[in-house]
């Protein structure tokens, strides 16, 4: 007999965790949606931001959530540098070229980090690391809750930007029809740069958030990159709402499955779910019709 309290407990933390996953995946989804390139280095940008939070906390005593804001800014700068310096030069090349470029960036960042900071696990413990909030009998990790709230705020901000501002709508317009956008005076190259910067900035924010409860190692990006792919495909390419809901689904699925099976298997559940949904609906849950 499954304990209902346990299920409610797992669902709650799953939803909170899912909000954070969603922000990681939204960055990937935005870059894919606008530029049609698969950013394999996505998880490693996340890792960089986790280290940023770790160092700021350990040496300067800065709260990792301040680190998350700085991670966001670092993402903007890093995104600008990499897009202008590398990606822009290979846009329009066959997909294998952009894949190799982002994969090279992954290798350089990941093993650069390993060389610089060593392979060991690092953790940081802000005051809310072990804090638990009791809400009507449901116990909630403070770190999850704060992380989820910031993630939710970032998601809402992104939504407002994409639906209420000229630049945001132009970003979506460029992703739907580049030529038409250019004929109306929209600088498509600028839109590409912007979407890459925002995408990396979002994952930078998520890195700071994750560092408050997740271990920091140079290879941490691999898991989150795969997870983001699953979330984006699950939700349907090109749909940011789908990506967000995909994040929630994966978060809940992981937490609930942890009740029944050993935690090391939790990614297996996510991937089985992913394959099942693709078999039933290949365009993803919220996949939009192609143009």
């Amino acid at each position: 007999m499954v304990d209902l309290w346990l299920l409610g407990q797992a669902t709650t933390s799953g939803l909170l965790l899912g909000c954070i996953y969603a922000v990681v995946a939204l960055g990937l989804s935005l870059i894919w949606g606008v530029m049609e390139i698969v950013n394999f280095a996505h998880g490693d940008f996340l890792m960089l931001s986790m280290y940023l939070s770790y160092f700021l906390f350990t040496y300067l005593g800065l709260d990792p959530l301040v680190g998350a804001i700085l991670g966001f800014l670092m993402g903007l700068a890093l995104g600008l540098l990499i897009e202008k310096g590398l990606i822009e030069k290979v846009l329009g090349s066959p997909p294998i070229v952009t894949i190799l470029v982002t994969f090279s960036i992954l290798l350089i960042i990941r093993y650069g980090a390993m060389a610089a900071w060593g392979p060991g696990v690092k953790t940081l413990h802000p005051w809310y690391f072990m804090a638990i909030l009791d809400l009507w009998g449901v116990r909630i990790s403070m770190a999850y809750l704060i992380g989820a709230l910031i993630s939710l705020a970032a998601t809402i901000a992104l939504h407002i930007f994409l639906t209420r501002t000229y630049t945001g709508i132009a970003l979506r317009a460029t992703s739907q029809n580049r030529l038409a956008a250019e004929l109306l005076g929209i600088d498509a190259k600028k839109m590409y740069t912007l979407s890459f910067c925002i995408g990396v900035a979002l994952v930078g924010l998520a890195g700071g958030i994750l560092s408050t409860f997740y271990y920091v190692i140079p290879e941490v990006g691999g898991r989150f990159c795969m997870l983001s792919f699953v979330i984006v495909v699950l939700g349907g390419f090109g749909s940011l709402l789908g990506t967000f809901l995909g994040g929630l689904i994966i978060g809940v699925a992981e937490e609930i499955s942890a009740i029944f099976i050993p935690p090391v298997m939790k990614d297996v559940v996510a991937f089985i779910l992913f394959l099942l949904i693709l078999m039933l609906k290949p365009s993803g849950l919220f996949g939009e019709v192609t143009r």
Partner: protein
Amino acid sequence: MGRVLEVDDIDVYYGELQALWEVSLHIEEGEFISLVGSNGAGKTTTLRTISGILTPRRGKIIFAGKDVTGWPPHRIAQEGLAHIPEGRQLFPRLTVLENLKMGAYTPKAREHFDETLEFVFTLFPRLKERRDQIAGTMSGGERQMLAIARGLMLRPKLLMLDEPSLGLAPKLVQRVMDTLRRLHEEGLTILLVEQNVRYALELADRGYVLETGRVVMEGGGRELLEDPRIKKAYLGL
């Protein structure tokens, strides 16, 4: 009255394949110009070169007093050129209103967004009713109206349309042509590319005839309609 567009002796290639030879044409402010010719004569190529999608290998393009040869499309659009390409090219997953907003993307157009929108909605009341509908879900006729409306939102010095009647029922073709006539009467400068030679030349102040990448004839719209060669080649008379 000034000269809005001058295409001066351009050669255009697709890779190694030459598509236009020594094409020259000019448009004065307030004129309605039609570019006619059979399939593959180079009409679309001409428009694509004017708007900067293609770059001429030889010759010059002067738009609104500026030499825009070799400029990217978005810079030329910012000077006030609206090119409505073949097949509408809407943003299918944006709403009608969002599509119109993108029409007014350039700083100059954005300043006048509200008044232009009002004008466009009186021209196409249907779009006002459907302002929150997703563009991709509308009918062919409505989509063509949205494409024209979006071009107008740019407050263009020159509106270029490529085959606006394509795929529309005769009644809707008539609607589109009536709209163009009205816009012309209100002073808009228009360059129309049309397979439907009769409509195109009836509306036009002047017309150019393209054949296999060359301008072979030019003259007043009515004058060309009466020309025996045009009658034989394009009107089946």
